[in-house]
């Protein structure tokens, strides 16, 4: 029961995949670097969150092909993902993660 490639468009070439892999490696190296270099520690959390979000997006958009596929899949994944993130933030707040320390 294989559908015609209605939901699939031109596949990225191996070159694209390799470039994405290279960027992922570089981002990981930067992440680890930020961890070890003390100068970055004041901005550690936001920097790491942004870097990992970038890696996350690259894998999802290119390796999981979400960017090129039907928007429907983005909705099926993105909705629960958003919900998950809001739930995590909510729980962290309720357990005092965002209380300012005196």
């Amino acid at each position: 029961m294989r559908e015609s490639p209605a939901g699939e468009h031109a596949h990225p070439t191996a070159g694209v995949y390799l470039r994405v892999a290279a960027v992922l490696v570089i981002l990981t190296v930067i992440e680890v670097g930020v961890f070890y270099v003390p100068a970055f520690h004041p901005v550690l959390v936001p920097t790491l969150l942004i870097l990992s979000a970038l890696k996350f997006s690259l894998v999802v958009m290119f390796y999981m092909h979400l960017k090129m596929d039907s928007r429907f899949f983005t909705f099926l994944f993105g909705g629960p993902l958003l919900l998950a993130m809001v739930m995590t933030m909510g729980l962290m707040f309720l357990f005092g993660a965002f209380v300012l320390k005196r």
Partner: protein
Amino acid sequence: MAHAAAAAHHTSLGLDSRKLAFWAFIGSECLLFASLISTYLIYKGRSLVGPYPHDILNIPFTSISTFDLLMSSLMMVLALAAVQRGDLKWAKVWLFLTALLGIFFLAGQVYEFTSFVHEGLTLQRNLFGATFFVLTGTHGAHVTVGVIWLLTLWSRALGGKLGKANALTVEICGLYWHFVDVVWIVIFTVVYLIQ
């Protein structure tokens, strides 16, 4: 009217039902891992006794594991491309390599877990042990299922039964594998790097 022969297999969205189901499943898994990650974050810093994260987490070692999993995603995507163009030989190679890298990751996890236990961090020791092992253990269980799935596909390929027509099953295995990788990206950042 194009839907003559397809009347019995008409799909409203023009998308494969299995792929739709799998993306819905991945969405659902986001909630599963978010609950485990939330529990980890809620209990961070609340262990009454050590070992604590900074005592025991090995960033260089885990960076290699992370790199391993990222490369395995690359292998996976190359495997899919091979199947999509009907290249059985390279499909076998890339599928096997993906599974192999997955096995290396699992071996690394086993090594990490046993060395933590030797250093005194157990499930029962403190909240860090409990939340860490359950979160990474659940992830590891998912990787294990992925490896079994990959090896199953690889053995189908060995039997010559993985042609272009089966590209969707490989694609779906790929979606699972990349998702497992992506969860690790989050875990690596949240557990290991942000201590």
